[in-house]
């Protein structure tokens, strides 16, 4: 499980660990993070942490971040909903995505990865 989470954090352009899925969001803060990433046109790989409590435990142990959602860009923790919101509003998020993913990062694709225990 830990290795799977690590692989997603390090391997995906933008990883969003959230409660629920983009199609059925189960928490207002996960929705805020997803919305901010969508507005920025980010390619998002979403992981639902709800199916297994171990996902959240391992994730927080890895990131040292106690709350959900958590957003990573190419392995770097960007923050939770408050930070992503703030960065999107200031244009900082878009700059960060361009810096890490290149000028033409905007494909707005959202996909979901399910973690198996």
């Amino acid at each position, binding site marked *: 499980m830990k290795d799977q989470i690590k692989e997603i954090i390090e391997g995906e352009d933008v990883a969003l660990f959230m409660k629920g899925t983009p199609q059925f969001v189960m928490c207002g*803060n996960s929705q805020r993070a997803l919305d901010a990433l969508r507005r920025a046109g980010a390619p998002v790989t979403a992981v639902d942490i709800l199916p297994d409590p171990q996902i959240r435990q391992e994730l927080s142990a890895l990131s040292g*971040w*106690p709350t959900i959602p958590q957003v990573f860009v190419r392995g770097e923790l960007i923050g939770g909903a408050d930070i992503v919101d703030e960065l999107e509003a200031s244009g900082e998020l878009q700059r960060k995505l361009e810096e890490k993913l290149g000028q033409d990062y905007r494909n707005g694709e959202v996909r979901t990865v399910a973690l198996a225990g």
Partner: protein
Amino acid sequence: MDARTRVEELLRGAFPGDELSVEDRTGGGDHFQVSVASPRFDGLSLVEQHRLVYDALADPLADGTIHELRIKTKGAA
């Protein structure tokens, strides 16, 4: 002590003399909006700033007192 007061006291302990506020967003004592303005945040990234707040509130986060936490941080500069 109610949960809001506990959160506020922990923050005052971690950020003595700094401007801070704690709002119970739902009145249920588990959804909080905290704002902290501190010179300790100067020069830190938002992730690092929020980590300092999480550190101060590690206990109520771990024991489930805080169900949801919204954080707004600001440096003094």
